[in-house]
């Protein structure tokens, strides 16, 4: 397996939707390729870091104000 072939399967590997055979082939490639191992680990970390950190918070005050405005207009039939 080449690095390009590995990269083509990267998302499926991360999302855990590869077949058993493909997983074995990918693992085999990883054993001999430090570059792809770094790519896999840091891509996983990238996703995890974006999932676990709120970068656009909705502050409570704003949330309540918007919520009130929405519900008032809904009650009037928009």
């Amino acid at each position, binding site marked *: 397996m080449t690095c390009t072939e590995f990269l083509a399967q990267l998302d499926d590997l991360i999302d855990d939707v590869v077949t058993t055979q493909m997983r074995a082939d990918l693992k085999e490639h990883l054993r001999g390729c430090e570059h792809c191992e*770094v790519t896999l680990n*840091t891509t996983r970390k990238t*996703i995890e*870091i974006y999932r676990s*950190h709120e*970068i*656009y918070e909705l502050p409570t005050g704003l949330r309540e104000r918007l919520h009130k405005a929405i519900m008032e207009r809904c009650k009037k039939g928009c």
Partner: protein
Amino acid sequence: MATIQPIAENEQHPDVALVERVRAGDISAYDTLVRKYDRQVFRIAQHITQNREDAEDVMQDAFLKAYEKLDQFQGNSKFYTWLVRIAVNESLMRLRKRRTGKMVSIDEDVETEEGSVPRDLADWAPDPEQNYTQAELAEILRKTIQGLPQGFRVVFVLRDVEGLSTEETAETLGLSVPAVKSRLLRARLQLRERLTRYFRRKKGGEK
């Protein structure tokens, strides 16, 4: 194009009951739905418009539109996915208004980005986020994702941040499943590459 998997017959999503109550005139049930999803809608709107005021407007408009159109909600997709679709469309409309006359679509910039994916192969420090305060980290993450082409950014946000499936993301954005997959891979790799600038393992003793 792939469609969203129907929910199994014996497994009704709790939102379905809330939607039914709203349709029957119980507005408090809509209040519950708004509170359940307002943060997500606001976040998606911010990611697309990259403007706080626009995101506030989009959030209001999306929930109002969803309320108005609730009769059109079929129940063969999740309420959340349906709502996200409205929010994405409202966000794109808001962008169009801002850039008066210029067409804006989720395809923007994507074509020019096809082809090579850059690869900075430096490994990251263990727990690299520990080197930054929460505020610094949020700024890095914002700056980094804002640098992605819109068409990649939206796919990454829906799929990886908001947790939609590939099929739901495709349905929401009106893209094919292969197009979503291709954009997701590029988005993930480009973000990884850009974050490496901040998170790379430093050589001997350097912080």
